[in-house]
């Protein structure tokens, strides 16, 4: 029973489902792609940051990366990741590589056997409208090495290079240092109605054994799609069966956001998880004219061997607390509403209680139940992703700290390490 529940949780965690793409981008590709993040810190500096566990410096680097992600260029008001490849383009035998960003949302409900497709009306845990984007380097690496194919993974499992860390396993070819993967999480806002947005406050949301999904959070704010929701205005609003009085109102300009057109509305309404998430937020399916606001994201950059893991989420008091520390002042206005955590390592720097470093996103991992070592609120991006391997294996329950090579089946001999990306193990296609 536990295995089934854990397996069912797969689709709501990590990277990737599928649609289609037949070819790699060519010089004739009409879509402008700005996909390489320019981080000014050298690999050796970052490796040193990892070994030292200097969280202040790690956070400064993470903000730099986020700043780069959020930046626009002269004559192009789009942020870089709006042109990145979506799950559908990456993990598919054929498809349209020109559908980019959240606007090109596309994925099928299929998985490669381990993950049970969601029943349209039932989910283990609370659904989140998430979508993973791959920059040019990540996309090209996966497609050129055919890492989106089960048959190729089966071949590499036998004849791939020996993994440098887990020497009893093989490994996929190393991703280039420019590779970036971004898992985005969105909240639908109704076109004609103010929509409640749950807010995670660490002090008000102690760990729950069933997980701290957003329907359990203690506070909400009101989001006004008219973009005239002046900050500070208050209103009453209901969410998840409760009525909240005198909550602050924000316009969508306080978020990175996109307007939903007819094509995107159709794609989202056909996706079980997106449909479920919008039903919770709006009480209905998403329609053209609604707005998607970016509420959270997990960002992985291959700047070091084990990737740098940055996670950020929106908050109405984003200038307070340790998650706001070291934020640069030159971030674009809407991006200054996001809080951030970073992980260079699964263990360091240790938490004040001596336990391994915690780095999680309240939207994406906060909902994970306590499987014996703590729930999502004590998880760490790298502690989970270092287990990524093929054939697919359950990524839950949450584990902490360095790999348990003796007891964890994810480190069993003759497996294929998938470069810290679960999406390759989970969403490769036949």
């Amino acid at each position, binding site marked *: 029973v536990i295995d089934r529940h854990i397996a069912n949780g797969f689709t709501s965690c990590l990277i990737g489902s599928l649609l289609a793409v037949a070819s790699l981008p060519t010089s004739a590709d009409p879509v402008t792609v700005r996909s390489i993040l320019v981080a000014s810190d050298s690999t050796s500096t970052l490796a040193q940051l990892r070994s030292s566990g200097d969280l202040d410096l790690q956070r400064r680097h993470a903000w730099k990366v986020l700043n780069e992600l959020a930046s626009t260029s002269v004559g192009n008001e789009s942020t870089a990741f709006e042109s990145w490849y979506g799950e559908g383009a990456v993990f598919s035998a054929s498809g349209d590589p020109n559908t980019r960003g959240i606007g090109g949302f596309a994925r099928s409900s299929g998985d490669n056997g381990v993950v049970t497709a969601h029943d349209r009306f*039932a989910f283990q*845990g609370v659904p989140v409208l998430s979508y993973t984007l791959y920059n040019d380097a990540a996309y090209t690496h996966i497609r050129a090495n055919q890492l989106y194919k089960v048959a190729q993974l089966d071949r590499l499992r036998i004849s791939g290079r020996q993994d440098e860390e887990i020497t009893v396993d093989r490994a996929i070819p190393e991703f280039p240092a420019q590779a970036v993967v971004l898992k985005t999480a969105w909240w639908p806002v109704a076109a004609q109605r103010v929509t409640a947005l749950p807010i995670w406050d660490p002090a008000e949301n102690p760990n729950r054994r069933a997980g701290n999904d957003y329907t359990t959070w203690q506070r909400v704010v009101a989001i006004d799609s008219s973009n005239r929701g002046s900050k500070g205005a208050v209103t009453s609003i209901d969410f998840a*069966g409760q009525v909240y009085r005198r909550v602050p109102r924000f316009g969508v300009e306080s978020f990175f956001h996109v307007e939903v057109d007819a094509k995107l509305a159709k794609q989202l309404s056909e996706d079980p998880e997106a449909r479920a998430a919008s039903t919770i937020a709006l009480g209905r399916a998403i329609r053209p004219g609604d707005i998607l606001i970016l509420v959270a994201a997990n960002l992985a950059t291959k700047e070091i061997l084990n990737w740098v893991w940055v996670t950020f989420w929106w908050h109405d008091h984003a200038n307070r607390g340790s998650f706001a520390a070291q934020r640069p002042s030159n971030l674009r206005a809407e991006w200054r509403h996001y809080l951030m955590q970073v992980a260079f390592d699964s263990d360091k720097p240790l938490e004040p209680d001596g336990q391994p470093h915690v780095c999680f996103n309240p939207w994406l991992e906060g909902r994970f139940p306590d499987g014996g070592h703590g729930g999502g609120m004590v998880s760490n991006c790298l502690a989970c992703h270092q287990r990524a391997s093929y054939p697919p294996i359950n990524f839950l329950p949450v584990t902490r700290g360095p790999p348990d090579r003796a007891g964890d089946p994810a480190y069993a001999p003759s497996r294929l390490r998938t470069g810290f990306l679960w999406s390759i193990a989970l969403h490769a296609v036949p």
Partner: protein
Amino acid sequence: VRVLGKHLAQACAILFALSILLCPRATLAQYGYDPSNADEQKPGIRYFGLVKDEHGALLPDVSIVLEYRDSADGPYTFAVHLFTDKDGRFHTTLPLDTVPSTVATKCFKAGYKLVQITKRPDTIGPRATVELNCVLHSIGGTPTSP
């Protein structure tokens, strides 16, 4: 006496038929039950029910949350999130060792408030069931700024 007995038997038959027709547990208890679906045949406790609004109309797209432990003293706790279908009904199956009285339930939809929630466990018979019905009243929504 024979005629009276005959009429009495007919009345009993009619009453029995009516009880079958009117008893929701006997007729609609297995909302959406599809015996050809292999999942339906798995052992477990079947949760089913419906949600109505203040006018008695069945409400689609209502969230139903069931939070339970894998066993009475087990370490794991799970939350299942379901939605009512277009007919305002839902059903799912929880593991046999869950204890209905310890299963926490929620029922909500944006723009509505919960007025009533009823939970009726039935552990008699080969398949245990729990009927869960909700009534929600519309509270409208807050319009966007003019």
